[in-house]
């Protein structure tokens, strides 16, 4: 990728979180405004400086608490005057909104774009019997009663869900359980290896006051936990939470005036070459992470050995293993042994992973929490959980399954 690439003209200059927790019982717009104002202030800006806005996934997607307020709601709440705006759920996973903002800024459509992701799933699920239909949400295949023939009033589903729900494959835990089981078959993955992602996340979360789960977790606890969908147990599945994460993406010529070191977007992984399907993807052990990661490395002179810290999507533990291989930190099928005793991925290891606890212990901020932590680490502002030594290059991944995106960030040195 040449240095004239529009994406390299974009940097993350501001980061912000709202209060994060389980069942906060605060409105999603309330949390969103809190995070956005924090990010704007962090960038040293005023809301009048914001001329771009993007969010994932926009309104009306998924079950309760999944989507957060749409961009029009937030624009109106802050009375933003926008040169560019965007929101949606399709694209290279959750970070699609950040990539879109970087492209808009790089192309000159906006100078300072605000990007946010808000979830209130913990509060929304508090009143429900079980934690609903997972991952991608109900989307366009939503329920209707009757419609299409007899069935005794059982809800009927169209779209992609019709190929899963009749079999009780109702959650992303089921769909990704298939991925994990296939990895056991092909690569000899063990539960003890899988556990390392959860245990590493929990160790790191103990140093993160904002993490939702901070109590110590040991291998025996993990192995004794109840199964959700084999081989995935309770600790392999991330925790619904309430919270909002926001970023300011700025044109690099303005970024150098920012109060904190800008995090420049070196490259993004956006490819999707296999079939966009939970069960028809050609290689069930990699799925879309393979394509996203490959395209990211095609767009930069940097390589895996240049990465100082990794924030890899762990909505389910096995996805972090998939990303380790896809991003080339180890060979295909070798991620189990790569993480085996947890030392490589520990904060003091050769590839510190999910240093704020990831989603398994930090809470399901749905990709954006991982990007936030990458910026904190690149700035050197992580306090007691700061990785030792050089921290100039970070990789972040979002998603897994049939949707995946990745991003390589470098601390801008002017």
């Amino acid at each position, binding site marked *: 990728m040449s240095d004239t690439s529009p994406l390299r003209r974009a940097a993350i200059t501001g980061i912000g979180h709202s209060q994060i927790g389980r069942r906060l019982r605060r409105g999603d717009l309330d949390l969103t405004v809190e995070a956005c104002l924090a990010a704007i202030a962090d960038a040293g800006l005023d809301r009048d400086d914001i001329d771009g806005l993007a969010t994932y996934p926009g309104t009306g997607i998924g079950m309760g608490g999944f989507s957060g307020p749409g961009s029009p709601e937030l624009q109106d709440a802050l009375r933003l005057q926008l040169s560019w705006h965007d929101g949606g759920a399709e694209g290279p996973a959750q970070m699609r909104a950040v990539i879109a903002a970087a492209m808009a800024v790089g192309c000159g459509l906006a100078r300072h774009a605000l990007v946010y992701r808000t979830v209130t799933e913990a509060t929304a699920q508090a009143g429900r*019997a*079980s*934690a*609903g*239909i997972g991952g991608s949400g109900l989307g366009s295949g939503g329920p*209707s009663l009757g*419609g*299409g*023939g*007899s*069935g*005794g009033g*059982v*809800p*009927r*589903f*169209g779209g*992609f869900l*019709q*190929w*899963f*729900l*009749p*079999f*009780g*494959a*109702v*959650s992303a*835990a*089921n769909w990704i*359980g*298939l*991925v*994990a*089981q*296939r990895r056991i*078959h092909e690569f000899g993955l063990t539960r003890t290896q899988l556990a390392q992602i959860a245990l590493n996340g929990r160790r790191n979360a103990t140093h993160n006051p904002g993490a939702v789960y901070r109590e110590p977790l040991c291998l025996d606890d993990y192995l004794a936990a*109840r*199964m*959700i*969908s*084999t*081989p*995935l147990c309770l600790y392999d599945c991330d925790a619904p939470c309430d919270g909002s994460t926001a970023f300011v993406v700025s044109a690099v010529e303005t970024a150098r005036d920012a109060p904190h070191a800008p995090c420049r977007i070196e490259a993004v992984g956006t490819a999707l070459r296999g079939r966009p399907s*939970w*069960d*028809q993807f*050609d290689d*069930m052990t990699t799925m879309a992470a393979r394509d996203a990661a490959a395209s990211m490395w095609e767009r930069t002179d940097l390589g895996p050995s240049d990465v100082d810290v990794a924030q890899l999507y762990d909505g389910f533990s096995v996805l972090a293993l998939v990303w380790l291989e896809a991003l080339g930190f180890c060979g295909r099928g070798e991620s189990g042994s790569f993480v085996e005793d947890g030392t490589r991925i520990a904060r003091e290891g050769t590839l510190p992973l999910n240093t704020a606890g990831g989603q398994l212990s930090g809470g399901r901020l749905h990709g954006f929490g991982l990007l936030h932590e990458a910026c904190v680490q690149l700035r050197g502002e992580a306090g007691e959980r700061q990785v030792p030594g050089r921290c100039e290059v970070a990789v972040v991944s979002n998603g897994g399954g049939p949707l995946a995106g990745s991003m390589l960030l470098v601390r801008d040195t002017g």
Partner: protein
Amino acid sequence: MLADGPSLRLLPRLDDCNRFFWTGGADGVLRFLRCGECRRFTHPPVPRCPACLSRDMAPEPVSGRGTLHSFTVNHQQWIPGSDPYVVALVTIAEQADLRLTTNLIDCPADAIAIGMAVEVTFVGNGDVHIPLFRPAGL
């Protein structure tokens, strides 16, 4: 013993595109859309063959045999009252990249093995016949 599936089977909403698949099991035969020109099967159904773009697409029977590509035993009560059941991913014998998510039934937990031969059977629910798989030759 594992259950055959969830306590309640949520059902597909039938339309002109998927009706052949979900109702075809009434005669015990599994069908997929097949291209009349390049002869490839495709799933889920689409108006044109994704391989050669022909519009000559029609449902055709398959043998109902396949192999287990992956599986997961569901324990979580997403659908209340469900005992543990097997969500299976089956590769259909006629074409290596033709797969179906389904349930594996009549198979003890310790006998489930990726690569095992399976065959289709159907469970009816009104107008819909849901294809399930069991170990071949039971």
